[in-house]
């Protein structure tokens, strides 16, 4: 299908029906020197980054990382002629030249989420020949250009939340090291979100709703893996029809396990929150803190079964104080809805 589309574009250009649409610049993506402005990669057809170029496929995650209520627009791109390989565990096997594109944005008013959407930054995770690299491009006020910001920055964001309350965020664009702190497996940069199980859900494509893995396979983007809906699936954290424990574990997986896994930045903590973890102590149940410092408050355990008010994990997720709050990066506000889920989950544990 992708080949067919490419052939059609080629045919159209030969006929002189239209100028050839500039394609995504794979060579630029692969260059060891990052482009100073986002537009150089030609990932978008417009200067404002609102219209993805051919080959970019939008996607979503069943359960994402909370980032101060920012909206996220995600796209995957793999170079023409390549496919993403299926993996049952961990992120999918993206070929060299792939890029994961994520734009962080806020509507002026979350009650009208499609209007006055301000782009803050577009993050790229590029699979170069030498490995993955993480870059952040910050949008200007005019929303016409995004420039590379390697050292991070802070942005003032004001919005009206879904309840109609005005909110302010001291939004932090991560520096390249901070990108790696989360995107780190054994010290190497790796994608976090696009695991088969977290992609295993529907997406509203222009052509209709379809399971993302099925769609990727149908358009020739994904190779291998089970074809039926028997693949593992991450629960949707805020879908009350799903079991509480599944939703809570999915939430902890998406919000904590990028560091809190045996190969991540927080490996030394012994607190491992990835979905695959089966040891209750490693998951925090009656696990004593080691290096939590004042983050441990006066509580004995990461998770005190039945008692969120005595659980370090809940306490740190609710905090907004640097040195206490978890995750350390990506948020400055508490995630009320996520906290409610974790509160219910800890209450349910015996």
């Amino acid at each position, binding site marked *: 299908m992708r080949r067919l589309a490419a052939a059609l574009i080629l045919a159209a250009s030969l006929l002189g029906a239209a100028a050839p649409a500039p394609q995504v610049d794979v060579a630029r993506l692969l260059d060891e020197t990052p482009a100073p402005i986002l537009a150089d990669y030609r990932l978008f057809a417009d200067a404002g980054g609102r219209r993805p170029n051919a080959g970019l496929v939008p996607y979503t995650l069943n359960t994402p990382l909370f980032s101060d209520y920012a909206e996220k627009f995600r796209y995957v791109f793999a170079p023409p002629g390549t496919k993403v390989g299926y993996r049952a565990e961990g992120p999918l096997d993206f070929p060299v030249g792939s890029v994961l594109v994520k734009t962080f944005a806020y509507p002026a008013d979350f009650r009208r989420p499609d209007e006055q959407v301000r782009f803050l930054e577009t993050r790229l995770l590029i699979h170069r020949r030498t490995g993955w690299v993480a870059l952040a491009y910050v949008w200007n006020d005019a929303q016409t250009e995004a420039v590379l910001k390697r050292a991070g920055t*802070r942005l003032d964001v004001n919005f009206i939340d879904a309840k109609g309350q005005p909110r302010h965020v001291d939004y932090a664009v991560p520096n390249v*090291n901070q990108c790696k*702190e989360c995107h780190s497996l054994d010290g190497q940069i790796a994608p976090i979100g696009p695991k088969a199980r977290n992609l295993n859900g529907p997406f509203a494509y222009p052509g209709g709703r379809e399971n993302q893995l099925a769609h990727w396979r149908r358009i020739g983007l994904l190779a291998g893996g089970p074809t039926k809906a028997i693949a593992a699936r991450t629960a949707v954290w805020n879908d009350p029809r799903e079991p509480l424990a599944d939703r809570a574990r999915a939430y902890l997986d998406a919000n904590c396990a990028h560091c809190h896994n045996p190969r991540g930045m927080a490996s030394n903590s012994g607190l491992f929150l990835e979905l695959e973890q089966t040891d209750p102590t490693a998951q925090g149940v009656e696990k004593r803190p080691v290096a939590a410092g004042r983050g441990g408050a006066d509580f004995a355990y990461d998770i005190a079964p039945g008692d969120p008010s005595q659980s370090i994990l809940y306490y740190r997720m609710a905090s907004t104080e*640097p040195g206490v709050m978890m995750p350390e990066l990506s948020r400055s506000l508490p995630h009320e809805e996520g906290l409610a889920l974790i509160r219910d989950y800890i209450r349910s544990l015996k």
Partner: protein
Amino acid sequence: MRTWLMTTAAMALAGAAQAAVIEVAAGPNAQERAQTALIDAKPGDTVAFGAGRFEFTDGLSLDIDDVTVKGAGPDKTFLDFKGQKGGGDGLLITSDRVVVRDLAVQDTRGDGIKAKGVDQISYLNVLVEWTGGPKETNGAYGVYPVSSTNVLIDKVTVKGAADAGIYVGQSKNIVVRNSRAEFNVAGIEIENSMNADVYDNVATHNAGGILVFDLPDLPQQGGHSTRVYRNKVVDNDTKNFAPKNSTVAAVPTGTGVMIMANRNVHIFENEIDGNQSAAVMLIGYRQPIKDAKYEALPRDIVVRDNKIGRNGWAPTFVGGAELAAATGGAIAPVLWDGAETFTRAGQSVTHDVNVVLTDGPVLNLNLPTPGDLAEAKPAVTPTLAGTPVAEPKPVVLPAAQAALTP
């Protein structure tokens, strides 16, 4: 492509030939300028902070191998994190062969200078402090190498850490020397680590002076082979201000040297004086244990040839006053819980625990299991010398690191 390769090769050669010094001056926008320097540094480069005060809004981080981060002196270059809005640490290092030297880090919201998962990390002539004095709301650790190999801490001062001033966790091959820890909960702590030499340091006015611990449920455990010698462990008299359920909260105010679990630890030729609870304390881990691999008892511990002054006159631990009264008015210089049995994962484990306590007198509590104070059968003996334990060989760091001086 060929041009690109040649350019890269030329750059690599140039980098090897002449390392650059990237200067960062005090002044506005320190955050972005400092972080940019730490990102742009190439292996071999030095990031040099000038004299003055640098005010940061976020933590800094370094992820390039073979970089030196230096200041104009710990009394001249102040990296100030009072206004920190995000990130737990002051400076986070995740690359190998990094040297941090000649600067001060102040008032971080979390830990001071952390190094995670690295090889050959060196802290030289550095001050880390919380300027408001000892407070529970201070960061946990001052210098904090963890999950690392080849750690050198030389001429470092840490003041005010709410856990341990100088803390080395889950690491291997460690030297801590010529350093000073004061007004922390624990002065110097070696935890879940192998092969550490801790010598010529001063630990004073902490709640506990020097700790060697081993804890369960961690990726690296089974700590062993530590030598603690020629240190001054005096007047540790700051009331323990740790969050109350943290491990160090259990360190009695006024403890000199404390060994918990761990193996093959040698305490010798230290000056230990003015610690009101005890000079030297050897205890087992007393919380319930689910970890089937964990060893909860201190084993093969040697305490010899220390100069032990007045200690243990007013013990602050539960039952301490009664114990002192029953054993001659003060806690004897070396206190051992005497436990040779503990329970893990529902199984009782017994070891024929060997201790060589030639300093004394020794107060043996003869506890059936760690923490079971109600069953104590205290006995004081001049010494308690089991089978001799061979001393670990001196820690040898890689040549380039061993050549560093503060």
